[in-house]
């Protein structure tokens, strides 16, 4: 991708605009694609992602829904089975729990239960994560729960290129794909090639090369982890940063290659520690690369508390760059 980028003109773009461009692209390329969800049309999207799309594509394809998560998610499943390519937007991961029955009991199981006669080529997008002082019912990071479920794929675009490119790959997938967009990323901006297109959704990415320790993360925590790696570099420690990108199925190969190279690892995950995705990644490392390790694994996860409203408590509840630095140093014996 870096190579392709060099050849085309780049443009300053926000993560929000990158997601919007991805939706617009998909709508233009395939008339079966439509977007539905709460406030996606007239309002322009709760996070302003779909602003302007109603005017461009009309109310049939930019479809406002009632506050009825289970109903319209199930309708997305039916529409996908009926030959359309719906993108369902659930405002936040907390609200997605109202649609969990449809996601788990229908989207994830129908291919299996029907003996491969029916698939559900549905894409569900939703916001996840804390940092906007929205308190406990709007700030959780439950993508790790979804990553538990066989039959669906779970993506976490952390970069502009992924925000722009993952949607098309997801729409081409014959199975249900959930895309988690961290709320703190929507305003992030950077340069992106104007012709940026679909990206691979099967592989994790090494975002920074390093030799001494692997920092494994995804989504909103990527940028804090990269910041931590920079700080560590200032202290003479070379950290490699792996962005999981796809939380289900996990790309074991990239994870193990990095760990085998650095022989140490910290997993950074905005989900709660108990039963977290971080726990899964650590266990896989133990299962597949234990004899390549030089020391114990470390985890930086959210505190086991509903995310609080006050800024200082909210920030204390979720992983921060300094915690990653401290954990990495501790594991390296550099207190």
């Amino acid at each position, binding site marked *: 991708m870096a190579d392709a980028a060099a050849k085309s003109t780049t443009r300053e773009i926000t993560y929000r605009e990158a997601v919007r461009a991805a939706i617009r692209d998909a709508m233009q390329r395939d008339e079966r694609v439509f977007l539905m969800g709460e406030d996606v049309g007239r309002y322009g999207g709760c996070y302003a992602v779909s602003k302007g799309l109603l005017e461009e594509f009309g109310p049939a394809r930019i479809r406002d829904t009632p506050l009825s998560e289970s109903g319209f998610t199930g309708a997305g499943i039916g529409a996908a089975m009926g030959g359309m390519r719906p993108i369902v937007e659930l405002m936040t991961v907390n609200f997605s729990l109202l649609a969990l029955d449809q996601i788990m009991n229908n989207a994830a199981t129908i291919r299996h239960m029907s003996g491969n*006669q029916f698939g559900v080529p549905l894409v569900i997008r939703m916001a996840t994560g804390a940092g906007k002082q929205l308190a406990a019912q709007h700030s959780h990071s439950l993508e790790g729960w979804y990553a538990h479920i066989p039959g669906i794929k779970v993506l976490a675009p952390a970069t502009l290129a992924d925000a722009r490119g993952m949607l098309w790959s997801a729409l081409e997938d014959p199975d249900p794909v959930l895309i988690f967009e961290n709320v703190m990323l929507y305003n992030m901006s950077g340069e992106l090639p104007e012709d940026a297109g679909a990206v691979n959704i099967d592989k994790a990415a090494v975002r920074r090369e390093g030799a001494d320790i692997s920092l494994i993360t995804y989504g909103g925590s990527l940028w804090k982890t990269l910041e931590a790696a920079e700080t560590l570099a200032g202290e003479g420690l070379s950290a490699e940063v792996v962005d999981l990108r796809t939380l289900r199925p996990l790309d074991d190969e990239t994870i193990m290659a990095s760990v085998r190279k650095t022989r140490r690892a910290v997993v950074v995950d905005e989900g709660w520690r108990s039963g977290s995705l971080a726990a899964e990644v650590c266990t896989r490392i133990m299962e597949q690369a234990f004899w390549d390790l030089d020391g114990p694994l470390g985890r930086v996860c959210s505190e086991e508390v509903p995310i609080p409203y006050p800024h200082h408590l909210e920030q204390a509840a979720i992983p921060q760059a300094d915690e990653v630095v401290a954990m990495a140093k501790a594991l390296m014996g550099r207190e």
Partner: protein
Amino acid sequence: MSRAADKPHLSREHALDLLRAMMRIRRFEGECARLYTEQKIRGFLHLYDGEEAIAAGIIPVLEARDRIVATYREHAHALVRGIPMNAVMAEMFGKQEGCSHGRGGSMHLFSSETNFYGGNAIVGGGMPVAVGLALSDHMRGDDVVTACFFGEGAVAEGEFHESLNLAALWSLPVLFICENNLYAMGTALDRSESVTDIHKKPDCYGIDAEVVDGMDVVAVEAAARRAIAKVRETGAPHFLECRTYRFRAHSMFDAQLYRDKSEVEEWREKGPIVRFREWLEDAGMAHGEEIEKIAEEIEGEVAEAVAFAERGSWEPVTELTRFTYADRTA
């Protein structure tokens, strides 16, 4: 759609077809119950005994292009829709020759060939899916009706209300069919619903509804013809409440402590098969020996289905994780 087409034309042949369809369901399920005691069929087994007039009255009125979403009590829907009895029986056994490759069992019968979208074992869970199937047809402008079956227990689920609202709001061609057998598992309707007149509920969403005697196959078919024609004409949803009764337990694990045996006996006397058969004989439309001949034919079909299922094969364990995701290399 002419009005005449909306009315069932009760020729002798058609009447016998209706009777045959109901007897075929009854006999198939009777055999399933027997096989269950032999442990050939496992898991939950929910029988349709007493409700046959609904599937037999409605499904043949649908066109091949129409879609069906059913519940976990769906053997009848699957058989009437034309999934071969062999494939349904093999599915009950869990054999890979079954209509869902043995992966679904009794509660998850599927068939892409006949547009049969399951077999959903979450009460109300199929309703939003039916709305979505209809949405896909609506967006393409296809002349297709989606028939969505559910029990009266589903009325208490949020998805019932969400689905009716969406279907009406977006004017989607769904025929909602409530099979009101008066008991949600073991809870009587008046113990769980503040308003037990279920056909009044769609009114809140501006959906026209009709209530019909679900033990009278001719009445059900007449109502189905009206309803399906209306959905096809208007592209809007319609609601049919079929009042029925289940003669057997909710599932094979149910001791039926919640109702008197006398209540069941009373309903059995009003059963859809016995009632229609008597009427046919009284009207001189069918004779006892003709009906016996039908019964014999069904007996043969059921025996062959059991033999087919017995002959069927177990899917190799090496294939366990197949069909979790699409096989993109295939």
